């Protein structure tokens, strides 16, 4: 908490719709002091303005490129130093692309894997280290149901998210005794500007619904949540389907 009792919240990938929705949702319950990290200054400024106009306290922004791995430690350190630590960190770094699988543009495919796994993973680890040294806080990682079992249509995105998801789950156990909590959020298809133009999948959800479920989970003890919640049971079945059956599903 800050001196005035506001929750200090670091949004990594701060201009993502889900990150902003989580910030807005947190501000409904009490004072929130946001810090946004991301690549585009202009988009971060717009997101910061949206947050303060929704009732958040003054927001700060910092620039970091998920693909520029060596720059991560300094940017995260700067954010923690400037805010005096964080109560909540949200890792919402990600990009969509490479839906054509093997036929995708190779550069795009590599970039999706780099940003969604290496970039997000590296930022997450820097944040976890900082949280571990302060001995408190919750780290929220935006994963995806695609991490549970990738389909032909999202093999590249799904594989990168699977890597991030596994990293988060493993490090969650490693930091469990240090006072730091990790919450992995696995949304289904979220209708946002990132998924604009894609055919919506069944059980599509919204950024606001993901934020609601995430903030609700902060009060509980869950380490992983699915949005909408029934995806948990659907994927519990799907992940165990034999390959020939899964392959033929109209997903």
């Amino acid at each position, binding site marked *: 908490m800050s*001196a*005035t*009792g506001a929750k200090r919240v670091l949004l990594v990938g701060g201009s993502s719709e889900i990150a902003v929705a989580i910030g807005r949702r947190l501000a409904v319950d009490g004072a929130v002091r946001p*810090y946004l990290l991301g690549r585009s*200054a*202009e988009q971060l*400024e*717009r997101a*910061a*303005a949206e947050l*303060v*106009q929704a*009732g958040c*306290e*003054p*927001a*700060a*922004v*910092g*620039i970091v490129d998920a693909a520029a791995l060596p720059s991560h430690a300094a940017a995260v350190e700067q954010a923690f130093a*400037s*805010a005096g630590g964080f109560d909540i960190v949200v890792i919402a770094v990600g990009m969509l692309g490479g839906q054509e699988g093997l036929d995708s543009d190779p550069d795009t495919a590599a970039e999706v894997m780099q940003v969604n796994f290496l970039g997000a993973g590296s930022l997450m680890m820097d944040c976890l280290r900082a949280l571990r040294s302060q001995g408190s806080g919750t780290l929220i990682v935006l994963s995806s149901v695609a991490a549970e079992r990738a389909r032909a249509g999202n093999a590249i995105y799904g594989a990168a998210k699977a890597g991030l998801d596994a990293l988060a789950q493993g490090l969650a156990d490693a930091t469990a005794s240090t006072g730091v909590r990790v919450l992995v959020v696995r949304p289904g298809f979220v209708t946002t500007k990132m998924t604009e133009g894609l055919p919506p999948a069944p059980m599509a959800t919204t950024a606001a619904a993901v934020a609601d479920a995430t903030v609700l989970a902060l009060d509980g003890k869950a380490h992983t949540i699915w949005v909408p919640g029934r995806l948990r049971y659907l994927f519990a079945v799907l992940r165990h389907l034999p390959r020939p059956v899964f392959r033929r599903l109209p997903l």
Partner: protein
Amino acid sequence: MPTRDAAAPGAPRARTRSATPGQRIPEASRTRLSGWGGALGVESLVLRPEDIEQAQATLAAQSRSADAVRGVIPRGMGRSYGDAAQLAGGHVIDVTGMREFSLDGARGTVTAQAGVTLGELLGSLVPAGWMLPVVPGTQHVSVGGAIASDIHGKNHSTDGSFGHHVEALGLLTASGELLELVPGAPDGLFEATVGGMGLTGLIAWARIALKTVRSAMMTVDSDRVAHIDDALAVLASPAGGTYRVAWLDLVASRVGRGIVTRAEHIPDPGLAVASDGPRTVADGERATVATKFTVPARWPAGLLRASTIGPLNELRYRSVPRRKRGKLESIGTHLFPLDALNAWPRLYGPEGFLQYQLVVPYGHEDVLHSAIGGLRRRRVPCYLCVLKDMGEAGGAPLSFPISGWTLTLDIPWSAAGLRPLLDEFDCLVAEAGGRVYLSKDARMRPDALAAMYPELDRWRAARDRVDPERRWRSDLALRTGLVESVSG
């Protein structure tokens, strides 16, 4: 360019200049800043130029820095109560190093750089027989801040706001140009800068028209009133001095009892102290207030509550006779009473307080009653409440004063249910055609701003002419939507 008045007691300290003026650029220091209310502290990159050339060079360097995207905002003495003179993670140009001024006795004007405080000016001007036409409730505001907030004083009904007496000002714009602005130009830039919250550029200097005074003393009439309606009646009566204000006790069981004061500069030299002979340094001292006590940094917040304020208010109320005429008080004692208590916001503890100041047109006294009643019903404590009359608006689009009643409420941030209550007040005020003072604000929402300041678009149009990229920003501007994100 203003030059230093060597004879002035408040003359600036001598400073060494580099061989090539403007080339030496102050280093940015990461500093925690907050408004005078103490809440919403943020870390900003603070730059402190020592003259106008350095300010220009500083602004140019800021535009090239990696953190330039966040924006930049000028800051003076930090007496805005909320988040007007800060920018989380952005640059803040502290103008308190720019402190030269000179008096032109023949024309009755003073030309002062942005960082000169009104107290410094009064200390020099009053012994020479001059007075600033408008001063707020503290001497510790800068000239730049006084214009950017278009401050008002207890004499607003007769003398208008501070901006009304500014003949010309120098504005350092986002492009690095130093413009000289005068009222009434077709671009409306002078009017957009007066009350413009520092968002059109950095006010580098200003030329202010003065009025004459015969003495550093004032004659004060006070009346005890039992109810807010009596206070309104006394303030509305044409009799008495032009410096008028009512203090209301909202802690007492008889809510709204108070004291109305009406004061005037001494017109008759026979009454004045040292008015006929050569003016003395003592006159300068009487025009200001020395610090008598500093509230320690670790003041326990719990001491400020109804049970402690109640008896103090009782004492204050009883210490004034029912009706007193012609009491002599110095300018400083009468106009800046709280300045004797240095760092007084610390009384509210680390969470700080907010000051909510509204104005509603005459005929909408019901809003005043609703506000005071609302605080009482929701059990939101208000430890200081001030009421006064205001005169005609000045014509600057974001300037606060309009003809009507202004009510000021000091409330601790820790008060439960404060935000929703003030959102309700905002609606009442906007519906009545009134507004809330941006220099005090720390929580207003964008829709309220648009409803209260109908000339917002006119202001934005003038601002866009000098700052199309919207580099000048503050936490206040982003929160209220005063400065919108550049679309794209």
